[in-house]
């Protein structure tokens, strides 16, 4: 007799987890690549897409050779185990590769969390890849802040360094069983680990790298909104894997997370359209407004998706969309926002929306949205005694504070280390962070010898009549 897999593997859960990971991967490629490629000025479309594709690849390389284990492996105990230094004990994991057969095929496990839930029903390769697609999309998101001037070489160094020193810490602290995880911080799928992190990093990086050319800031109309729609659609539906995959099982909570994700997105989109129509200066609904609202909704529900019920999800969409709309309308006039050229406004749509979502989770987490059930598997009673997380509105009074302090940790660490890494790249490695002004003027043509829609009149002069023969023609 042959068996296709060991008995700890549940095909349905592994199937869902691989599928969810693929959906999340699609959010980056082609999702973000063409969303941003369609949103930037035509002369930067190629550069933007190359940054996205190469960034995605670069994360995977560090992920498999050391970074995965820094986020999800055995923690390095740096703190000594008492007082505030405790945080250092759950800060970062032992670096280590995951490329051996056993590291791919054995039953997956997150050391620090294994007591807190049921064993995983899939192998390490699934967990590693699933977590990779999250790690990979994060730099692609903050690319939105720095595009149109950041040097490709600096990007290719910054992304792996950031994944190692920043993302792995975020992940360990909240997801890998690190400090804030033990304190009960709630971040279902990365409102903090990913979106707050992307907003903060993008913003400080845009500040360190400096703004786009004046001419590009004055005139940065999008290349093509049809491509924006392609990216946006893939991102919305791909988010079903983003939030639906995070219970790690094709469970009831996965289904609820998926539904809630769509609910919050729908209300946020409609709220932004309403703001555009009634508050906005032109009083007209806009397509890009609907996309902004959509993204804000997706981001805001991310820390909450499987923790809140559908009513909360609907409310979160309205609130997050309204607040971010107002923030984006009024904050650019005041410091520090007026001083930093965050090209696509990532600090608003990802940073603020992620922060808001995380705080609202602290209020709204509904303990009836069970994640795992303890007890006898077949007991009918089981699902009436859920062990889900409770927010302030459900009697858990310090949840909001924990959410807030977790956010502060992420903001502080990510901002400081991102700046540091960029300065090291600039002054120690001596790689320029930005293109020269001449290159910035020409864009894609200067830096890649490519254009997104090359002139039809282009001539390839090395082909002559005689070079290629007529075949058997």
């Amino acid at each position, binding site marked *: 007799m042959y068996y296709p897999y060991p008995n700890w593997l549940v095909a349905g859960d592994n199937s869902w987890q691989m599928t969810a990971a693929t959906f999340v991967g699609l959010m980056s490629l082609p999702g973000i690549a063409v969303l941003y490629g369609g*949103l930037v000025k035509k002369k930067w479309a190629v550069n933007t897409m190359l940054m996205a594709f190469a960034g995605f690849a670069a994360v995977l390389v560090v992920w498999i050779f050391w970074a995965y284990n820094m986020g999800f492996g055995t923690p390095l105990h740096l703190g000594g185990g008492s007082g505030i230094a405790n945080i250092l004990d759950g800060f970062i994991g032992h670096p280590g590769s995951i490329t051996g057969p056993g590291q791919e095929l054995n039953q997956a496990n997150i050391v620090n969390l294994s007591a807190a839930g049921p064993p995983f029903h899939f192998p390490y390769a699934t967990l590693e890849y699933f977590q990779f697609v999250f790690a990979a999309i994060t730099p692609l998101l903050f690319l939105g802040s720095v595009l149109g001037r950041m040097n490709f070489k600096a990007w290719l160094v910054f992304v792996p360094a950031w994944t190692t020193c920043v993302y792995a810490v975020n992940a360990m602290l909240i997801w890998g069983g690190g400090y804030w995880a033990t304190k009960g911080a709630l971040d279902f799928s990365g409102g903090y680990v990913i979106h707050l992190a992307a907003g903060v990093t993008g913003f400080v990086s845009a500040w360190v790298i400096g703004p786009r050319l004046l001419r590009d800031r004055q005139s*940065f*109309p*999008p290349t093509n909104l049809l491509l924006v729609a392609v990216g946006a659609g893939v991102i919305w539906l791909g988010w079903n894997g983003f939030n639906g995959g995070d219970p790690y099982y094709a469970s009831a909570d996965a289904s609820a997370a998926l539904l809630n994700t769509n609910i919050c997105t729908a209300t946020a989109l409609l709220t932004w359209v309403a703001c555009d129509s009634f508050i906005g*200066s*032109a009083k007209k609904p*806009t397509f*890009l407004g609907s996309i902004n609202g959509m993204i804000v909704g997706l981001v805001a529900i991310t820390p909450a998706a499987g923790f809140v019920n559908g009513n909360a999800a609907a409310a979160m969409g309205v609130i997050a969309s309204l607040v971010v709309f107002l923030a984006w309308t009024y904050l*650019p006039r005041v410091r520090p926002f007026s001083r930093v050229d965050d090209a*696509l406004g990532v600090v608003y749509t990802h940073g603020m929306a992620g922060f808001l979502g995380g705080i609202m989770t602290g209020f709204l987490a509904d303990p009836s949205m069970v994640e795992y059930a303890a007890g006898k598997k077949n007991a009918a009673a089981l699902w009436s005694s859920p062990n889900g997380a409770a927010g302030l509105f459900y009697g858990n009074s310090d949840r909001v504070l924990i959410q807030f302090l977790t956010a502060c940790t992420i903001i502080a660490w990510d901002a400081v280390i991102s700046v540091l890494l960029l300065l090291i790249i600039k002054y120690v490695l001596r790689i320029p962070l930005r293109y020269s002004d001449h290159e910035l003027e020409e864009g894609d043509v200067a830096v890649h010898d490519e254009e997104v829609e090359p002139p039809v009149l282009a001539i390839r002069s090395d082909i002559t009549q005689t070079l290629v023969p007529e075949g058997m023609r």
Partner: protein
Amino acid sequence: MKVVIAVIKPFKLDDVKESLKSLGVQGLTLTEVQGFGRQGGHTETYRGAEYTIDLVPKVRLEIVVDDAMVPDVVDTITTSARTGKIGDGKVWVIPAEEIIRIRTGERGSDAL
């Protein structure tokens, strides 16, 4: 030989083309251009940034004609391109010294 140049509203192109054909004009060259003038532009908004677009899409016609034809051609265009609203465009006439049909090398009226 003259060149009549007309800048008109794009959606009037078909009418103008048809009436020129009726007049016996056998050829013309057309360019998609953008006009700046009394007709105001508009505003577009992308991700919160407002853009002023004060250029309006127009079509530019360039027609080489015999001197004798100029008044008729100008009149025909003026009539068929008119909507009466601001932005209808202009017609102007330029002297041409010579015209050659590339295919045959014919010159002057024969080349038209």
